[in-house]
């Protein structure tokens, strides 16, 4: 069985946030809710300064703490390793938000789906996209599971102009993600949390 994962090449990422925008377009998340984003980090003092862009998203961990702490079974893991939230089961206790070491889950607050980007007026796009969400529940990146099921790549991977994001099967030793991890020493974020993330970073 496949285990879907992603490799993010930090040397290639230019911090353009095209993935952030593509994710919002694909998922139609309301303002302030991001399933993926690009964090920037600066170190040093002029003239020796280094800046790094770190795209972050749900890591779809193998030992996902969010799945373990969920009291209702709303957060579940598919056989292919994608961690999803069943909005009809979520009670909004936010235990998963607290448990996620990467802080990649967000609560859909009350009123968010009525407010939209234009404070009270929902565009036709928002009207369609917001139908799949519910207020008071936790939302997060789905690895674009509906696209993956059709054999497509997640929207952020498809959009990245620098090909910094690579998506594939971690269980296939010949897949591009496996080769990148093997050849360039992919590191998992916060491996000390023992979550075994499916997202790897290479530098």
């Amino acid at each position, binding site marked *: 069985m496949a285990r879907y994962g992603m490799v993010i090449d930090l040397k290639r990422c230019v911090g353009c946030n095209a993935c952030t925008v593509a994710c919002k377009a694909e998922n139609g998340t309301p303002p302030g809710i991001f399933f993926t984003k690009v964090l920037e980090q600066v170190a040093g003092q002029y003239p020796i300064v*280094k800046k790094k862009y770190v795209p972050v998203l749900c890591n779809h961990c193998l030992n996902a703490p969010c799945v*373990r*702490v969920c009291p*209702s*079974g709303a957060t579940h893991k598919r056989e292919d390793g994608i961690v999803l939230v069943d909005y009809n089961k979520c009670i909004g206790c*936010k235990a998963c938000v*607290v*448990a996620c070491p*990467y802080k990649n889950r967000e609560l859909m607050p009350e009123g968010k789906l009525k407010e939209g980007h234009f404070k009270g007026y929902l565009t036709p796009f928002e009207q369609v996209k917001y139908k799949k969400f519910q207020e008071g529940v*936790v939302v997060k990146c789905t690895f674009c599971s509906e696209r993956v099921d059709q054999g497509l790549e997640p929207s952020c991977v498809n959009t990245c102009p620098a090909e910094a994001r690579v998506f594939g099967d971690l269980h296939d030793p010949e897949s591009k993600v496996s080769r990148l991890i093997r050849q360039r020493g992919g590191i998992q974020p916060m491996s000390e949390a023992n979550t075994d993330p499916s997202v790897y970073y290479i530098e």
Partner: protein
Amino acid sequence: MISQTVPMVGEEFVMGYRKQSVWSKWIALAFFFGKVGSGMFILAVLLNTPLIALAGLVIENVGKGGALLIHLGRPARFWRAMTRPQSSWISRTVWVMGIFTVIGLIYLVLPAGSPAWQIFKVLALVSAVVVAITDGFVMNDSPAIPLWNTPMLPFLFLFYSLLGGTSVFFFLVHGGWASITPLVDLETLETALIIINLIGVAIYLGSMVNATATARESLRLLIKGPYSGMFFGFVVAIGFILTLVLTLFLGASGGTLVVGLITLADLIGHFFIFYLLLMVGVYSPVLGKLTI
């Protein structure tokens, strides 16, 4: 190698420490009522005061249960919280509360002194202790926040529960609203528990000094950052020092007003320690500190 101090960030797209913000006042209130209710129940069972035990059950169910319901994003689905006790501490907490309530009520309706009553007295005590510590496991179950991820929390919660219960009991007995059969010096018990909790909090926070950088950031927020005023004011000055000074130097001899003040001060400290521990929960940066 030059590195830069990792900043505390909010929702901006910058790498750094991030504060948890989804568990705040309602969870703190649930912990508070949970501790006070179970503490009152434990004391009431040990000192044979069924009415106070009933009050403890009511505080546990209405106070803690109500606060938890308000906290939920979808309160109508609260029953779903019971469906995963095999892995979720929240689910276990709900089960434990239910079992505690059933056992507690059976204990209260059984004729005092009967063999069944004796058995349920032990069961009720055990379930009340379990209720007191499970919230500690709920917090400690979170690998994301090093400040909470310590086995000391359940013990701290148990002693806070006993202190809260004793404080309320002290006030009720002194005010004449309850009478206790065995002669127990509640004043001495209160003093001892304040000192034990003070030592417990000091050891707990002291252990964070040598913990991860993220845990130290939480500690910094608590004792030097924006929450230091509340911590030193409500938890240390009112919750510990004022209660200790009043109990040691005035105590029961100071009259009901002083005892009421001791109870109020203790409960203020009680609520704020939970609230502040929640508010200073900090996540580590995803890829650590950038160096060049």
